[in-house]
């Protein structure tokens, strides 16, 4: 290990330690990361007449947590609102300790956040059931907020109007393949999230709802993003179509699913597709192979 490598490993350990620079220095010593010949901090960083070495390193240590937590706060505003600013920032610090960033982009640091919250919620379940319930809702909210961000980065495609589907003879509809927009995501969540997200938007207190499986569609049509709830049957249909199944196969898949309301689906199909195509969920329509 060269001196440069040793110095960088030492400094990163010191400025990312959750308990601060002094604790970071001690940890680095224990882990054998001190640069060759260094015994005390001033052997590595001289400081000056205005700031000690600890104070200089603290500038970087402070920035490490603040910068990344600010990014997480931007990505997860409803989670922050739900948990409160203080609790959110404390959880983010814990998250960062468990998940030091390995991504080159700050935009990717928060990718594992929802999964980490789920594990955190499970750990709290027995000792702190109320807190655990809040964290469980936060998991779903985090998934939604992450997905809302990710649809920005999917490519744009022109949507097709309902008339394109109508132009196909009805007897051929079973073989139709409808390609969903690239910037479309379908989610299955453990909680209803719409009221929580609206409350955060309106800066009102969030009432934690009882768990109930909820299906959500998120999509972008150029410079606007949309989120709306789906029924089980609607979610199943769109999911099958987005996997490349024909309309007939999609209907069959939903109809044979446990708990599906087949009669409601069959009576609602025409209206659903008219609405979905009106809002631009599909990029192309073609007859199957």
């Amino acid at each position, binding site marked *: 290990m*060269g*001196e*440069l*490598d040793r*110095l*960088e*490993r030492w*400094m*990163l350990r010191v*400025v*990312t330690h959750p308990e601060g620079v002094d604790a970071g220095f001690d940890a680095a010593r224990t882990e054998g990361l001190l*640069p060759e010949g260094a015994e005390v901090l*001033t*052997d*590595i*960083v*001289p*400081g*000056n*007449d*205005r*700031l000690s*070495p600890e104070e*200089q*390193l603290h*500038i*970087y240590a402070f*920035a*490490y947590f603040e*910068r*990344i937590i600010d990014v997480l706060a931007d990505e997860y505003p409803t989670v922050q609102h739900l948990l409160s600013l203080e609790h959110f920032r404390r959880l983010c610090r814990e998250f960062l300790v468990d998940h*030091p*960033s*390995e*991504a*080159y*982009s*700050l*935009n990717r*640091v928060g990718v594992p956040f929802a999964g980490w919250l789920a594990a955190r919620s499970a750990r709290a379940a027995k000792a702190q059931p109320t807190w655990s319930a809040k964290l469980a809702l936060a998991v779903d909210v985090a998934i939604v907020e992450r997905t809302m961000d990710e*649809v*920005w*980065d*999917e*490519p*744009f495609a022109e949507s097709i109007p309902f008339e394109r589907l109508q132009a196909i003879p009805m007897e051929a509809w079973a073989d139709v393949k409808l390609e969903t927009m690239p*910037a479309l995501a379908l989610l299955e969540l453990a909680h209803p999230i719409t009221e929580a997200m609206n409350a955060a938007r309106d800066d009102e207190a969030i009432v934690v709802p009882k768990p109930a499986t909820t299906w959500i569609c998120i999509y*972008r049509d*150029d*410079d606007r993003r949309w989120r709306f709830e789906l029924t089980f049957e609607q979610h199943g249909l769109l999911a099958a179509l987005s996997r490349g199944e024909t309309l007939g196969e999609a209907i069959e898949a939903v109809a044979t699913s446990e708990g599906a309301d087949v009669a409601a689906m069959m009576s609602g199909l025409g209206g659903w597709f008219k609405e979905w195509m009106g809002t631009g969920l599909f990029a192309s329509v073609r007859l199957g192979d």
Partner: protein
Amino acid sequence: MTNRFDLPDLGVGVGLRVPHFNYVLEEQPAVDWFEIISENFMDTEGRPMRILEQVREHYPVVMHGVSMSIGSTDPLDRDYLQRLKRLADRIDVAWMGDHVCWTGVNGSNGHDLYPVPYTEESLAHVVERIRIVQDILERPLVMENPSTYLQFVADSMSEIEWIGRMAEDADCALLLDVNNVYVTARNHGLDAMEYLQQVPWDRVVQNHLAGHTDHGTHCIDTHDDHVCDDVWELYAWVQKRAGGIATLIEWDGNLPDFPTLQAEADKCRPHRSFLDG
């Protein structure tokens, strides 16, 4: 005076930031060029890319990255570099660069611009890496002097001596951030003018200007305010000394509306008026 890379003086530009997207597209404001943070555009095919392509139709664009980590002892991230190159080719950027720093090591990223010790070892390491990167990118790299908040006992030369040798040995271009010179000089009790007098001017293709936060005992490069008078004074000297260098106002925190940002950029123009004749 022109730089040895024959890269043009693009005039006065500003950073392209998300809250200004619509204003820029609708108003096409009178700035000369835009700089983008490379990492905000290299992994998207969505709205940011559509905006960037429209902006590029009307303005020159420069790419400025924060994640190359040229000073790190970790292997270069070839995938990252290929993505950078694809974006640069697609947008036909005027030039691209990053910072003299490291951002992480041993696979972890601190997402900060950490200071490189100014030693012979680090110099050889960084020079070799810049050469490799320039081969991959097929263009000169424009490297920016950082703001630093500490020095190392191991330093064996001054920052500007180290950067000058780096630029010479790696044959790369330089982005001289005048605010960073000021902040670093203040933080380490150095003379900013003495620093500037040692700059290899034929390698400087761009200036940055920004606001910083003065804590009395030290300054932090926060990019969240107007450029201070002392930095404007240094900038005026730099422009005259170099004979005109493309200049960018960096403003990230407390981002103002676009007209305020544009007005800050326009403050550069009197310092470049000798170019008008």
